[in-house]
């Protein structure tokens, strides 16, 4: 895969939606342990709406797919994941706009999305949030020179697993302090599904 085309972007969202729906209960269980217990429900509702929106439109450019995903997630998710994922996809859309989404553009998009999420949530790396996964992937993309599914999958996985043994200092889990240690961060897990889906799209498009 040299460019992220419209069909890749659509497939990426569809695969992410499948994983979110399949793991709705798991995400909720994770969130019940250290949050408010609604991450699975909120993400499932949000991505369900994203698919409804995307299936009803004809797209010319990946940027427009990302933009519609962003707007839908912002208005339909309800919890913190709405503004955070909404911001991430909006940044991707802005970076992709008006250009072929080659590797350099894609890589910059993820970097911009990461910075958008950090700014929106006032979060940094190591606070047990989805920033940990997005920054691991952004770093890996920066150090490579082409769409590589294994690089994306492994970096996202390490970011997700790294969230387990640290203490939450942002988000609802921060109220629990040390009790948050030993639990996976639900937002990091849903972000992992997003990047795992991307890796699958790259594999199939290669």
């Amino acid at each position, binding site marked *: 895969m040299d460019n992220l085309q419209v069909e890749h972007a659509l497939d990426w969202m569809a695969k992410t939606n499948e994983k979110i729906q399949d793991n709705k209960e798991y995400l909720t269980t994770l969130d019940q342990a250290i949050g408010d217990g609604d991450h699975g429900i909120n993400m499932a509702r949000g991505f369900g709406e994203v698919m409804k929106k995307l299936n009803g439109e004809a797209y010319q450019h990946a940027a427009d797919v990302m933009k519609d995903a962003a707007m839908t997630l912002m*208005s339909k998710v*309800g*919890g913190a994941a*709405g*503004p955070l994922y909404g*911001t991430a996809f909006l940044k991707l859309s802005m970076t992709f706009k008006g250009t072929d989404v080659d590797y350099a553009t894609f890589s910059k998009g993820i970097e911009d999305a990461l910075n958008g999420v950090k700014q*929106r*949530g006032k979060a940094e790396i190591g606070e047990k949030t989805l920033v940990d996964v997005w920054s691991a992937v952004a770093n890996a993309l920066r150090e490579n020179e082409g769409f590589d599914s294994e690089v994306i999958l492994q970096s996202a996985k390490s970011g997700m697993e790294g969230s387990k043994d640290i203490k939450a200092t942002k*988000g609802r889990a921060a109220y629990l302090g040390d009790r948050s240690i030993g639990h996976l961060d639900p937002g990091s897990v849903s972000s992992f599904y997003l990047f795992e889906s991307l890796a699958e799209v790259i594999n199939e498009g290669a």
Partner: protein
Amino acid sequence: MSYVGIVLISHSPKVVEGIKDIIRQVIHDVPIELAGGTDENEIGTSIEKIQVAIDKAYSEKGVLLMYDLGSAKMNAEMAIEMSEKDNIKIVEAPLLEGSYVAAVESGMNKSLDEVVKALEKGF
């Protein structure tokens, strides 16, 4: 006469309704609009509800947004970014006590900056 408007944002519709009742016992003229819960009135917050509340509470003196927990603040920030108005501010203060003080200050015909200053000093 116009007053600084106040928008109460909470994860729960009941929370903001209750706070408005408490404030209205004392302050009658200050616009207070509510953005509690999601579009389906479940627990969460809604950018759209916040936008509508801002429009309703708005006067030339501006609007102050008060919120409860993290994601409410993020949605409040996005609602401000999407609106085309500029004198809207978010304050870090306890939702109930802060909103009460804000309503009292606004009712004394203070400016948006003065209300914000009173809240920053008080909490």
